[in-house]
């Protein structure tokens, strides 16, 4: 009996050693294994919104620097997070990620800093792109130039493999990111484009805001936007409005809070364009949304198309990943559904994942274990696809 137990223990130890040999080889020698290792380190960093000790100990030390470059559309502010160590011999060059964050100055948002540092700990060079236009809560297709400039800079960056540069767009960063990814100068070399909580069509976004409802899988659900998209839309169309229109609309839709409705006298001072925009953003005429969209001037309609990814989708070559929270209060989930449907129509490679652990693009705190397990798996898959590029 003792001999038999001894033999079983020996066999078990041999099996464990064989397993360790296989797992070790897979996780270090094969690109899929390396991407899996990276995802396993990165997922806790995202979910906990902090840098976990194993990642800090096992990962590369990180250096931060802020660089300003110039483009035809003005200065471009780049926050660069990069490993301080030389790139490893295998695979030779580092992956690089261009983050295009949304409107406002998000450079110091803790979760963005944490994400950037975590990627850099994993040996990836991260560049967060900002522009004066985005700082002013404006969305402009011309900011695509900033993405092109950042991409071309990274192609020359020491240690970066020019074939492993991807773009991640957050929220309203989707416009510069898509316009940049569609630019003929770089579009054939963009490794991937990931869009997190972005919109697809500004006109239909305005329609959803006006109705205060979105249709998901055939069911109409109430949807209440927060103040940021309202302020950003006013800022974006401000160049086509008179000073009076701008003054009144900014009063009705201030930054970071819901403003009081305009009085009848104030509404009477608005131009037809501004009146339609006001009712769409205020959501006080949900039955008149189509009419309010129709009365917009041709210039306004053209601008809304210009700032929408729909206008450049057929010129993007990179595979696209769409990530969106089902209860996103800033950009309705249906925008990513429309994006995915359009990509499917033109047979563009894409992947679409819906979540319920984010508040717009930031992870919620105090998530339950069950939710973490189910949503964490989906997030892990998305990370794996992003990290496979550089593995």
């Amino acid at each position: 009996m003792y001999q038999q137990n001894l033999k079983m223990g020996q066999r078990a130890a041999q099996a464990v050693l064989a397993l360790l040999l296989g797992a070790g080889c897979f996780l270090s020698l094969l690109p899929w294994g390396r991407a899996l290792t990276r995802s396993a380190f990165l997922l806790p960093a995202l979910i906990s919104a902090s840098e976990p000790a194993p990642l800090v100990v096992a990962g590369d030390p990180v250096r931060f620097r802020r660089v300003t470059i110039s483009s035809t559309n003005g200065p471009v502010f780049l926050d660069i997070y990069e490993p301080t160590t030389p790139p490893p011999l295998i695979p030779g060059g580092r992956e690089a990620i261009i983050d295009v964050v949304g409107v406002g100055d998000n450079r110091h948002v803790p979760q963005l800093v944490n994400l950037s540092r975590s990627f850099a700990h994993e040996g990836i060079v991260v560049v967060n792109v900002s522009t004066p236009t985005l700082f002013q809560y404006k969305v402009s297709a011309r900011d695509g130039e900033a993405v092109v400039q950042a991409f071309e800079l990274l192609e020359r960056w020491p240690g970066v493999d020019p074939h492993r540069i991807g773009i991640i767009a957050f929220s309203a960063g989707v416009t510069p990111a898509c316009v940049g990814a569609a630019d003929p100068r770089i579009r054939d070399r963009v490794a991937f484009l990931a869009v997190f909580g972005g919109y697809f069509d500004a006109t239909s976004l305005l329609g959803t805001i006006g109705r205060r409802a979105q249709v998901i899988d055939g069911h109409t659900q109430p949807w209440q936007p927060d103040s940021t998209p309202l302020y950003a839309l006013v800022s974006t169309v401000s160049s086509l409005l008179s000073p009076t229109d701008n003054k009144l609309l900014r009063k009705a839709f201030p930054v970071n809070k819901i403003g009081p409705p305009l009085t009848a006298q104030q509404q009477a001072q608005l131009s037809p364009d501004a009146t339609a925009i006001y009712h769409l953003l205020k959501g006080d005429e949900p039955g008149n949304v189509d009419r309010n969209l129709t009365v917009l001037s041709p210039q306004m309609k053209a601008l809304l198309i210009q700032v929408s990814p729909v206008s450049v989708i057929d010129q993007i070559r990179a595979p696209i990943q769409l990530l969106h929270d089902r209860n996103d209060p800033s950009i309705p989930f249906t925008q990513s559904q429309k994006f995915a449907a359009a990509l499917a129509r033109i047979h563009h490679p894409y992947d679409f994942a819906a979540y319920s652990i984010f508040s717009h693009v930031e992870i919620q705190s105090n998530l339950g274990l069950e939710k973490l397990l189910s949503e964490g798996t989906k997030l892990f898959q998305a990370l794996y696809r992003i990290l496979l590029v550089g593995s």
Partner: protein
Amino acid sequence: MLMLSLFWLLVGLLIGILANAAKLRSAWVRGGSVGMLGLGALVALLGGWLGTLLLGTLFATATAIWITVLGVALLPWPLTWCNAWLRSRSSPTP
């Protein structure tokens, strides 16, 4: 790197224990089972540093693990042979 190096030594010791349990040890050194732990720790440390050089620190532990398993499985035989050869050289000829 000090923390990682200590961790790899620990991993090597654990793999050495497993190798002893798996009866991978032969009569290659005096005090065999302790020698196997030492071999595991040494190979894990070297494997970790090699992994860092080739693949980066993030994959160094995985590299250390498979190199150590290979080391404790394969190295005892050449070591036994070396040991026997050294003994035969040092023993007085009749």
